[in-house]
Each structure stands twice: as C-alpha cells, then as structure tokens.
C-alpha cells in the first residue's frame, strides 16, 4: 500500500510520541557529548508540529511536510531546528502536490531531504551526526527499490540500516557540531542526532509498513 497524506499525518504524530518517550534518553546522550538539550528541543518542536497538523485536512503530502518543517524551524532552536526543518522542507518540496507516494516517490523525497541536511550542516559520513543514520537508510531504500522490493520490506530495511548507522556512531570522533569540541573525548558515545533520525525512520517503517 502506498504512503498517503493520512498515513503521513499518522507518521508525524507517532514520531512526536516516540520523541516524547525517548526525551530523557536523548537528553542523556546529548549531555555526554553536547549540551544536553536535544531531547527537550525535539520534544517541544514535534509537539508544535502536531498542533499545526490540526486544520490541515485535505492538504497534500508536500504541503503537510513543509508545514512540519516550518514548525520545527521556528520552535526547535539549536542545530536540530534548521537541520530537521530542512529535512522536512526539502522532503515537502520533492513531494509537492502528491496525494500518494510509492517506493520511488518516498525514496526521492528522503533523498532530497538528506541532501538538504548535508548542504545546510556540511556534514559528511562518519562525522558523527544525524547524516550517519540518514544516509545508510537512504542507500538501503535505493537498493531495495532496485531489487523491486515491496514498500513495506524496503522501509524495514531502511529503518534497520538507520539503526546500524546510529550504532556505528559510537566509536567515531565527532567532526561537526558541538561534540567536535570534545575531540577524542567524543569517542564511545552514540550521537543524539543519529538517534533521533533512527527513530524517525523506525516510525516510518512501522507506520507506513502497517506493522505498527
């Protein structure tokens, strides 16, 4: 079954719930190598995004995602605001006018979003950032699409790749963001941004994959 504007709404709500549930964990991860506000900021931003979903009945997927992006940009702050804001804004642009997305459509949207995040934050793979969860997820989607996999299967593989990428940030030394100030002391900690990105893709797999 394709992704629809109804399931996109469910995805955003489910992600907000997931962030609220993991707020303390994200704060702890960020306290270790950053400034300890990632969970609080994402929670505030996603609550705002969910508030804004009310009154968007009838909007296409592109408009919905842009609305989420703007809500995050204006309420999260920190680096995560512009980065997650850009992710959703670019995904929204790529899916403008769409009522449904198939695997190719979802892959295209995520690709645009990840490109936007990289352009805004200038992070490369293995810099110990959210990109380390997003890029493997995108690559897994592409590989699944090439093999002609079903959407549900592709989303599951994408979420698993994000989880692998997230865990792979643990031994890395941070080269971007506030954690980079710690140099070698950032080694041994899982990146909070990669963690919140992994949650986003895990929730996508459960919501759009129908296994939630």
């Amino acid at each position, binding site marked *: 079954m394709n992704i629809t504007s109804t399931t996109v709404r469910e995805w955003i709500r489910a992600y907000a719930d997931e962030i609220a549930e993991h707020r303390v964990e994200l704060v702890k991860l960020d306290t270790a190598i950053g*400034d300890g506000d990632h969970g609080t900021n994402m929670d505030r931003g996603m609550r705002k995004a969910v508030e804004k979903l009310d009154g968007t009945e009838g909007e296409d997927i592109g408009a919905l995602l842009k609305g989420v992006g703007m809500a995050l940009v204006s309420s999260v702050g920190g680096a995560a605001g*512009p980065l997650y804001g850009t992710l959703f804004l670019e995904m929204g642009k790529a899916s403008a006018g769409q009522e449904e997305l198939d695997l190719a459509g979802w892959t295209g949207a995520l690709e645009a979003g990840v490109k936007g995040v990289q352009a805004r934050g200038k992070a490369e793979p293995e810099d110990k950032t959210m990109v380390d969860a997003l890029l493997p997820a995108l690559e897994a989607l592409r590989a699944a699409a090439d093999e002609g996999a079903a959407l549900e299967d592709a989303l599951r593989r994408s979420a698993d790749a994000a989880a692998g990428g997230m865990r792979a940030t643990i031994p890395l030394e941070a080269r971007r963001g506030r954690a980079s100030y710690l140099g070698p002391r950032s080694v041994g900690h899982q990146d909070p941004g990669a963690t919140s990105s992994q949650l986003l893709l895990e929730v996508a797999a459960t919501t759009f994959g129908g296994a939630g």
Partner: protein
Amino acid sequence: MKKLINDPEAVVREALEGMEAAHGDRLRVMYDPYVIVRADAPVQGKVGLVSGGGSGHEPMHGGLVGPGMLDAACPGEVFTSPTPDQMLEATKAVDGGAGVLHIVKNYTGDVLNFEMAADLAKGEGVEVEAVVTNDDVAVQDSLYTAGRRGVGVTVLAEKICGAAADEGKSLAEVAELCRKVNGQGRSMGMALTPCVTPGSGEPSFELGEDEMEIGIGIHGEPGRFREPIGTAAQVVERLASAIVEDLPFESGDKVLAFVNGMGGTPLIELYIVYRELNNLLQERGIIIDRRLIGDYITSLEMAGCSITLLKLDDELTRLWDAPADTPALRVG
C-alpha cells in the same frame, strides 16, 4: 536543583518580563517571537546591530541592547540557539534603511539559524551581513571540527561595532570592523563547577571536588582538559599563555584585558585573576590599556572565569571609549 525560579518551563519568558519591567525606558520586549529591542528602534540611517544566542549567558545579549551597542537581541531557550523567525523579526525591527549586521557566535546552531534568517530577511528586501566570532583558543581550528567557538570577543565586538554604527559607518564598514575585532581578539575559559540547566535539573558534567576543567565553552559543555585544581596564578598562567601565544600578542602591544566571570565566581576572585593577568602581561611587556572585569558572558551559576585579550589600535580604543548606555554596560 536549587534555583530562584517559579517554573522551569517559564524561565526565559519570566526573565524577559522582568527585564521589560526594569528597563522599559530603553528596551522593548516582543514575546511572539522573543526579541529584545531598543525602545527607539529603528534608528533611521544607522546600521542595525542584531545578536542572539541561547539564554543562560546573561547579561549577554539582552543586557547589551541600547544606544552605543546592540539594537536587538534574540534570546533562545536556555543554552539553545534562537530560531530564524526571531532573528527575522529583530532584523526588520531595527532596519533603519542602512542595513543590519548579524553578530553570530560560532556554534553550529547559532550559525545555521542565523543563515536561515539572513536568507529570509534578504527575501524581504533587508540588506544583511553576518560576522561569525570564533575567538576561543581552547578549540583546535581545523576542517575536522565545527571550528573555534565565539566567546568573550563577542561582547567587545558589540561595544566597538555599536560605536562605529553610531558614527554613521556603512554596513560594509561595520562588518569589516567586526571581523577586525574578532581577528585581533583571543579568549579561553575554565570552570570550577558545572552548571545545572533548569530544563534538565542535572549538572552539565561531573567534576570532582579537587578538579577543574580547562578550555570550557559557555554552554556547560566540558572542556578540553581536566586537571587537579590550581591556584589563581596557575590558572591565569594556563589560560593567558595559550591566548598570548596564539595571536601572538607581543611586547609593546596595547591590549584590552577582559576578565569575565562565568556566573558563580565572586568579583573578589575575578580581581585576583586580574592581578595575576596584569603581572603576567607586564612580564611579557604587553600593556593593558583598557580593561573590563565582571560577569558579561555567563554560563548560569557555573563557577569559573574566562580571559579575553584584544589587541588595540587608536581606532579600536576610540570606539571602546565612545558612549554606550545599556542595562549591563555603560560608558561615558
């Protein structure tokens, strides 16, 4: 957590309401989104100066809004960058037709949000330039980090650029001056204790009773080195040597020496730090021509200090001495 607050969620708003009540004669506070702006903004024909950053560093930046310094400040949540909509409102509120300078401390969040805001403001026809301060010698400046943090020099740049804007300098000239101040200033900080953000209620890092952190930032993040605690003389030697050798500051140079408290260190200790700094610079033939001592860039209740040295010339000295009238810093 022991704090003089009512509600951890309302800390920023209630502090803004207090500032407005106290300084309403010269400041206007906007609440949706949060912006602190000069009461008489926009000043026609003058370059507008906007800065901003997370809250928890008071008096920076809101306490430095007023004639001779900033036209507006955007306070974020505690230790969290403000958002582009705040910066856009601030920029529009202070644009007197001569353009607006964004003074941005080099933190990933601040830089990204100000970049988005500058794009938005340009889209609305406001001329914007941004200068990023990055004076913290504790951080290796390399392609593989986010670069040096912006700390003490930011306050000095806000004073000096504010004076230049008052003199009628153009946006390009004020921006160039800001880059010059940043280029000639260096800082480093240390902490004796961590701080507790109202949102988390937990110390920002663990530090033993007999330990200190050298090379801290201003957001409660740990420093570059953890060491057994030393005397004021040893601490100043550690910080000032790194600063002096980095620029480098040389014998015969005139400097502005800025001893900044992190929020939880009494002035009596800051003057001991100044004494040691004065001795150290004298030994090296460096002349302290101007000075600033007190809490200007704090990290909530953290105990500790930072030292900033700015190499002066006639232009910078004259602009430093020009009048300023803000809640936290008055000159003339």
